């Protein structure tokens, strides 16, 4: 099977090139998915091999940027996994209420849907005005979109449903204004949010957070990189801070497993205990 082996070598070299040239480190991302995306991009170009792509990546920044977009999977939703948000409201909000001031970090926020979802909950629970939210991603194009807070109109129905299932207390329509073919997130939801660039593979700790959400980002990481990220979260939160992961993610393989305890296992909500 020399073709597969050649491709695996080429993928390795491509990721190394991207790291050395542009500083983005995909070397410890799960390979199967990265390789699929590389080959998908390859099929859309006139290039024949991944080796040829390597040259293009080195000499053509625009091409690299396209590949970067391919690599960062930005699929997201408002109130994705409604039960998670419901449990967050029930179990975590009452604890957060006891603090005078709140700091929250959304790592890998993509286009911001999740951030705005949490903002809505905080608002309905009367906590929004004492909260500072940091929303980060390593993809600047995406961050720019997140800041704008525009949602496609054809998603509204799904999001409204999610919002209701997540235990929303108002009418979801209160939180956006419809314009032509898209909806604009209400301005009042934006004022407590700072969007900024942060790479979980290469950047450092962030500050004393009470709550950190990093959902559906670490499934793309190999074990070592997952460890790095979880260590980063641990060091970026206050004692007894909350950590929320995606529905299919866990701390099971991490060396920090015992530094956290599950608050609600099924919802993947953990608390730092060490």
């Amino acid at each position, binding site marked *: *099977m020399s073709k*597969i082996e050649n491709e*695996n070598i080429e993928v390795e070299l491509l990721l190394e090139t991207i790291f050395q040239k542009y500083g983005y480190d995909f070397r410890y991302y799960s390979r199967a998915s990265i390789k699929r*995306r590389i080959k998908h991009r390859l099929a859309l170009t006139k290039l024949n091999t991944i080796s040829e792509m390597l040259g293009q990546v080195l000499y053509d920044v625009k091409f690299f940027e396209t590949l970067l977009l391919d690599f960062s999977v930005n*699929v997201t939703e408002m109130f994705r996994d409604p039960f998670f948000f419901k449990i967050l409201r029930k179990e975590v909000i009452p604890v957060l209420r006891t603090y005078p001031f709140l700091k929250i970090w959304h790592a890998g926020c993509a286009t911001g849907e999740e951030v705005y979802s949490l903002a809505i909950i905080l608002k309905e629970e009367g906590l929004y005005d004492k909260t500072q939210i940091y929303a980060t991603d390593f993809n600047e194009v995406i961050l720019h979109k997140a800041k704008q807070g525009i949602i496609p109109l054809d998603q509204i129905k799904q999001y409204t449903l999610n919002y209701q299932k997540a235990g929303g207390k108002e009418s979801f329509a209160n939180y956006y204004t419809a314009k032509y073919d898209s909806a604009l997130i209400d301005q009042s939801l934006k004022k407590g949010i700072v969007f900024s660039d942060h790479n979980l593979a290469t950047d450092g700790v962030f500050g004393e957070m009470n709550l950190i959400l990093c959902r*559906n980002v670490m*499934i793309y990481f190999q*074990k070592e990189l997952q460890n790095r990220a979880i260590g980063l979260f641990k060091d970026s939160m206050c004692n007894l801070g909350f950590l929320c992961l995606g*529905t*299919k993610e866990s701390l099971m393989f991490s060396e920090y497993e015992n530094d956290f305890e599950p608050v609600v296992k099924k919802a993947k909500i953990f608390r730092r205990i060490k």
Partner: protein
Amino acid sequence: MEKLDYEVIVIGVSTGGMKALGEIIPELPLDFPSPIAIVQHLHPCSDDFLVTDLNERSKLTVKQADEKEKLKQGFVYFAPSNYHLLIENDKTFSLSVNDLVNFARPAIDVLFETAAEAFKEKTLGIVLTGANHDGSQGAKKIKEYGGLVIVQDPESAEADIMPRAAIEAAKVDFVLDLDKIVDFLLKKI
């Protein structure tokens, strides 16, 4: 059981899948040699009824695949709803929430193609009943890398589009009824 020539069995199934799988998986013995990974198209918010039900009826352990889990003998793994299921070169699973492929997540093509990459000629792919075209590109890839592909006979499948699409796209090895597929897995034919 005697060792099969395949280190992994990947199954893709859609419409009518629950019934079809119910006729195959419970028939396999506890020492069935190869791990099995399945993509069944489901509605995004369906729960794990299928998994629990099939587990109760089977000798093998049926479960949802976890990310980074190693593929092991004695287990039948399902892709969790709303996630693609992939196999890495080190024979572990990974999950992704990437865009839909063939309007589906999980997509059969994603599992089949990554299985073919990881296990090469040691891959056995099975395409069962379904009303879409998912799985046909994956079947092609399995053949390209030297594996074996079996397709459920469209004549006897509850929905024939998916088996037909696979037969059209790839040089499949066998077209069989469900009971013959079981016989093949048990090395009776």
